[in-house]
Structure formats: structure tokens, C-alpha cells
């Protein structure tokens, strides 16, 4: 299929930024405004409703904290994967990427346990303002983690064959973004009382 053959357009770099990295930045930018809108809405409501603090106190801060740690370490793997890719060491980059994805899996598993607990205690998405935001924000973030993992595994399988190594950096960037979003969510959802 002609699509797989890269157009010249894709190989040019007038700005000096490689095309792949440039589009990654734009994707991240467009995601920032989405999460930005949601967070802004949440913060406004949270200020308007002090009583939500009570609900918030039911969240499991330790699980949240540990998840933060998990994501941060996984980001670290992503960084070294990027290093490996720069050193043209595809297989190593692939390994590290798969490790990163594993981090994502761990994160989601913990989330899964958390949510089952919350739901058993009767805190579902319709149990009130805080919980609605809690599930929507964390859920949307979770989806991004999942998407990141899938893309990462695809990129890894290419990288293992030393193909498309520039993508290693891009998915890394994206992963850092997902990470940073969580850095915002954790205090706002778990700690803020």
C-alpha cells in the first residue's frame, strides 16, 4: 500500500524539529487543554463545595502515592529507552519500553483494586459531585495510560528490529505527559482535604 512509503513531506524539517517530535508536541498540547478544562471545572466546584472534602477523605492516599511512584519509575525507563534508541540500540530500547509498559500495567492493576474497593463501599460515579469527578478524571487518565501502553508495545516491536527508532522518543514524551497529568490528579483527588 502506497501509504507505507513515506512522503517527502514527512522527511522535511524546516523548523529543525523532527516531524515526529513536532506532531507529538502538538498532540500533547491538544491533550493539555482537554485535561486543563476538566481540572479547572473540578477545582472550581471543589472550591464551591467544601463538603466534598469528606468524600475525598475516603480515597486511598497510599494506593495513590504508590501509583505515583510506579509511574515515575516507568518514566525513568522511558528515558533510558530513549537513550538506547539514540545509541541505535533498538533491542535494548525495546526491552526498556516493554518494562515501561509493565509499569503502566501495574498502575492500572492497582487502580482496579482501588476502584473495586470504592465501589464495594458504595462510592460509585453517581454517588455525588466528588465521586463523579474522581471517576471521570482518573478514568480518562487511565485510558491514556492504556493507550500509551498499546502504542508503546507497537513501537517496541518495531524498535526490536531497529526500525522507526525516532518513535521511541515520541512515545516517551507522551508517557511523561501522562505521568505529569497524574502528578496533578494525585494531590487534587487524594490529598486535598
Amino acid at each position, binding site marked *: 500500500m502506497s*501509504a507505507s512509503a513515506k512522503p*517527502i513531506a514527512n522527511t522535511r524539517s524546516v523548523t529543525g524539529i523532527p516531524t515526529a517530535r513536532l*506532531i507529538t508536541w502538538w498532540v500533547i498540547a491538544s491533550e493539555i487543554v482537554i485535561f486543563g478544562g476538566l481540572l479547572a*471545572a473540578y477545582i472550581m466546584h471543589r472550591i464551591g463545595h467544601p463538603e466534598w472534602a469528606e468524600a475525598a477523605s475516603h480515597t486511598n492516599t497510599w494506593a495513590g502515592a504508590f501509583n505515583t511512584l510506579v509511574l515515575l519509575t516507568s518514566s525513568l525507563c522511558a528515558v533510558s529507552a530513549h537513550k538506547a534508541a539514540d545509541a541505535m540500540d533498538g533491542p535494548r530500547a525495546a526491552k526498556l519500553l516493554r518494562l515501561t509498559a509493565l509499569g503502566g500495567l501495574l498502575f492500572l492493576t492497582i487502580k482496579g483494586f482501588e476502584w473495586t474497593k470504592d465501589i464495594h463501599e458504595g462510592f460509585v460515579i453517581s454517588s455525588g459531585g466528588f465521586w463523579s469527578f474522581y471517576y471521570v478524571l482518573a478514568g480518562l487518565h487511565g485510558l491514556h495510560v492504556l493507550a500509551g501502553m498499546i502504542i508503546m508495545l507497537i513501537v517496541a516491536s518495531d524498535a526490536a528490529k531497529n526500525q522507526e527508532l525516532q518513535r521511541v522518543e515520541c512515545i516517551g514524551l507522551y508517557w511523561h505527559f501522562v505521568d505529569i497529568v497524574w502528578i496533578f490528579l494525585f494531590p487534587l483527588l487524594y490529598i486535598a482535604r
Partner: protein
Amino acid sequence: MSGEVQHAEAGFFKKYLWSTDHKMIAMQYMFTGMAMALIGGYFAYVFRMQLGFPNQHVPGYGIVTPARYNALVTMHGSIMIFWVAMPVLIAAFGNFLIPLMVGCDDMAFPRINRLSYQIFLVSAIVLLASFLVKGGAFGGAWTAYPPLSANGAYNLTPLGSVLWLLAVALEFVAFLLGGINFTVTAMNSRAPGMKMYDIPLIVWMIVLASVIFMASAGPLIAGAVMLLFDQTMSTGFYDPTRGGDPLLWQHLFWFFGHPEVYVVLLPAMGIVAEVIAVFARKKIFGYKTVLYTTWAVGFLSFVVWAHHQFVAGIDPRMANIFSITTLMISVPITEMVFLYIATLYGGSITLGTPMLWALGFIAEFLIGGVTGIFLGSSGTDIYLHDTYFVIAHFHYTFVPIAIIAVFAGITFWYPKMFGTMLNDTLGKIHFWGTVIPFNVIFIPLFITGTAGDQRRVYSYAQFAEQSRPALQHLRTTSTIALLVMLSFQFVFLFNFFWSLRNGKKAGPNPWRSTTLEWSVPSPPPHGNFSELPTVYRGPYEYGLPGRADDFTPQNVPE
């Protein structure tokens, strides 16, 4: 190309739905947009008939019940903005022109490009499907204010409202993907020598529009997610009885909604710039100033949104701030329009069909613009809000944009797209047959609006003041004018498809124009340029002193 359009049998799927060629994707967007325009126009016909001849059987539809009326209006608005203006102005022209005009062989990410169209197509199907579900299509206006939109018990279209929301969300995703692709291509894939200020205005405008869209749509996507959960998971984001706030949606919607109107305005402005430059044989008057005003508009468009909510229950003091910002934005737009008019000075103007449309755009848009001032002034908006004055205002902006400017673009680039010329006489007939009725449709609506006709009302029988004969006459006039306007659209459709086969061959550069797309055969081959061009000068070098020709293409060496 033309041949292919006719008999679509041969490998239809692979060629028309699975192609990654930016030109084919442009066609996909344009023809989808056209089809939707006809549907949106048909809806306008139906509900205008109801308004012009209340409670009569509408030929080709039937009786218009209140519920159906609301659904028709809502869908008309949604379709015309999201499934006509956006795909045609941004996606169709953007896809076709950007790679050609910046001198490369395709979009930077062809497969993302293809995905963008496919998502868009799905969104269109989802939207139209909502007419078939139980309860019918959503009727809560294109602004979809909760709690009405959030609760099936209120809007009585529990499924329709969900499908409407999904369709809009999908459409947004499609245009985020497309817009990012445009931006990256224009930033990174320009031909050697094409500096920032050598980029044709339309490329600038489409890219800036995409960026504005991206920056404004995000919060609404978030808002849409919340609304979706309110509809389906009984959350209470917008439900005041459960700690939610209906005004939150209005802020998110208009924070997107107002920039959106400039998102569609800018590409139209771009098309008009290209056409005027060519047919006046003139360099755009103050090219850089046009860009500065565009940036100013882009920036200001993010700080005026609450002028849609003056009387919506926001803090009255806020209204003053937004009145000021709203009138501020009139300054750069005024300047932009004046620069276009100034471009005519000293030119050698010929009134080909595209030029008629372009000049028509300016003439009509000015009216739409100035009437915006009446609404931007909070004092008068108390009375005019949600009256037909608003309707007339934004049709005097939208129709010039999504119909008039689009026709300018189509008639101008048709030779490049299909390799044949449109018939000029039919073109001129279509122009006058569209623009004159257009004014007869909407000028009466300014009057009924100032007389207090409110929007989204299928019949004024309940309102003694509104059902005076004087006003009903105006409504009927407007409806009849619409019938005329619509009938003239068949001239266009005939011309369009007839010329594919029978129009005279165009040759690479029928308008003797300077930008890169005219340096390749019409229609451009796969890969566009036989050898990729280098750019030596700005886009509008007409009448350069000491030259044989009155135009000097961008890719011609000194």
C-alpha cells in the same frame, strides 16, 4: 479524476475510502460536506416553510410538529457548522491546498489524514442515524444547554441527545487529527526557500484556524464527557440539585463556540484573499498587517465568550468586561476587511465568477459584522438576545463564509481540482441567483427580530404581538426568497457535474496566478510535483515593475 468521479465502481473502497492521497481526502471531505450542505439546506427549507406558511403540509416533508421543528433547527445548525463549514472550509481546502501551496508531495502524516476523514464520516453517519432512533433526533438547540440536554425526562429524546453528543465529539476528534496534521505540514514540510512570510494567506489562515480550534475545543471535549455521563450514568455535573452547575456547560461551550466562529471565518478570509489578489492582479495590501490582525483576532477570540451569556444569569458586572473585549475584536477584523478593500486600489480588476463571489463575501460579511456590534453592546443585547436579530446577524456572517466564500473557492480551484473550467455564464447566473435571494431571506429577519420574534419557535400563534400580519408577511417573504435561492443551487450542481466532462481543458495555470499549486498540471498527479519546487519570493507578486508578464510565480528563479 473527472472520469473517476463518474463511475465509482472500480475499486471504489480502495480508491475513495482508503486512499491516503491528500487530494483524494480533500474530495472526500468536499463531497461529504456538499451532501451535508444539501441536507442542512433541506432542513432550512422545511422549517422555513413552517414559519412562512404555519401548520400547512410542507411539500416533501409533511406536517411540522413542535418536536420535529426543534429537531430540524438543532440539526440544521449543527450540520451547517460542524458538517459543512468545518469540513469544506478547513478540511477540504486545507487538504487540497496546503501540500500543493507549500510545495511538497503530501501531508506529513497521510495515514493520520485518512483516519481523520474516516472518523469524520462515522460522525456524520451517527448524527443522521439519530433521526431514526426511538424518540427522534435531539431538539435542544445546537448549544445543548443542560439540564435540558442532560436529562431524557426533559428533552424527551433520550437516545437522540446521546447520539448528537457522540457525533459532535467524534467530529472534534477528526478535526483535531486533521488540524495537527495541517499545522505540522505547514511548519515542517515547506519547500526550500519558502520563509514564514512567503506562505500564501490561505495556508496561514487554515493553520491558525486549526490551532484556535485545538486550543478552544479541549475544554468542551471535557465538558462533553461530563454531559455524556450526566445523560448515561446519572452523574450530576450540570444538575443544580446535586451540586452541579448548568452555567458551567455554557462557559465551556462558548469558550469553544466563539473562537469556533473565527475558526470558520479565517479560512474564508484566506480564500477571498487569494481570489482578490489574482483577479485584481494585485499584491495583498499589507500582507504582514493582515497576519497581525489575524493573530489579534485569534487571541481576542478567547476572551469574548460570555457575550453569549449576558442575560444567562452570570454576574452582571462580568457583562461590562465582555462588552469591552467584544467591541475590541471588531477593530482587527475591521482592519482586515479594510486591507482587502484597499487591495483593489490600483489594480486591474476583472469580474470573473470567483471574483464576484469574493467581493460578494466582503459586501455581505460587513453587514453581518456590524450587526454583531448591536449584540456585543450589553445594553441592546438585553432586548436582542435570542431574537431573530441574532439569527440574521450570524447568517450574514455564516452564509458569506460557508456558502459564498466556499463558492469563491470552488469556482477558483475547480480547474486545478478537476482539470476543466466551469461554465462562466452559469456561474454568474448562480451567483446572482444566490446572493440576491440571500439578502431577501435575512433582511426581513432583522426586522422581525427587532420586533421581538424569538428564536426556536415553530409558530407564533401563542404570541399576540408576534402574530400580527405585518410580521407574518415578512416571514413569508423570507421563506419565498429561500425557495428561489435553493432552486438556483441546481444551476451550480448542474454546472459542477456537467463541466467535469464537458468543461474546456484548463491547463496548469488558467488564472495566470503566482502560487505553487498553479505550477503543476491540472489535476495534479499523485505526488504533485515532478521535481519539487524551490521558492524565490512571496505569494502575491503581481505587476512587478520591469517584467513582461504581470505575474511572477513563486518558483521562478530571478
